[in-house]
């Protein structure tokens, strides 16, 4: 199994938030996840994500998981 920093998954939460004009705090209030955890996700420090978190964010931002997460070998 590759090391945690070699997973190559990129999180595009910051771009999605900017496109929709939503702050992290507003998103936190909508999805019921702490700002701290959302910040961890936004900054690419998360090592794993619950389906429930993913679903809640996608619902709040009206996007699909593929919009939020992409994979690239140089991530």
């Amino acid at each position, binding site marked *: 199994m590759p090391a*945690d920093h070699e997973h190559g998954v990129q999180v595009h939460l910051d771009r999605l938030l900017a496109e929709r004009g939503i702050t992290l705090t507003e998103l936190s209030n909508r999805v019921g996840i702490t700002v701290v*955890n959302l910040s*961890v996700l936004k900054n690419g*420090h*998360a*090592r*794993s*994500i*619950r389906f429930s*978190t993913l679903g809640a964010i996608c619902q709040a931002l009206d996007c699909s998981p593929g919009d939020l997460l992409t994979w690239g070998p140089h991530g």
Partner: protein
Amino acid sequence: MRSTWSRIDGYVLNGVLALGFALTFTFGLLLPTLGTLGVGTPVDRIRVGLPEAARETVSTPGGSSGRVELVGSDTIELAFADPGAGQRVLLALPIVFGGLLALVVIVLLWRIARTVPTDPFVPPNARRLLMIGSALIAYGLLAPAVGMLVSGTLIDTVGADLDVTPLGTGSSTAIVVGFGVAVLSEVFRQGTRLRADVEGLV
């Protein structure tokens, strides 16, 4: 989650461990070693076995509880008035052996204690717990062998026709506790892996 571990708890734990280390180092290692080297009072006695025939039993009619017996001990101390250098080493050996293992356990406990205020659920602590369990098992298994070897050799060095037998005293409790700690260390190790899995989970 707010930790219930306070700074005072840390002081108390470190104080107890420091006191235990100081006492064990002094009485389990330093004084016996100095005595062996001729500085201070050497260890001059060791417990040996007493044959059945030599044990004394005193009977009394007793009172309302019926007949009572005072049964003599099955062990006795072999005391050397002026032990030679080799005898001093042998006499100190069981104490130093137990003292060294106790110091190892205390140092490992201290290293675990240092992680408590921050993050105790780390793989090194699981390894330290396993080492503590191993040290306890080693003491329980080896202390009787060391005692038997030392007392047997000392009885031989006396030369006189002493009606005593070599004696090795161990601790089955140490073995049981050691196995318990070893099992808990494995539980702890798996717990640290589970914790590592959910670390960074959002």
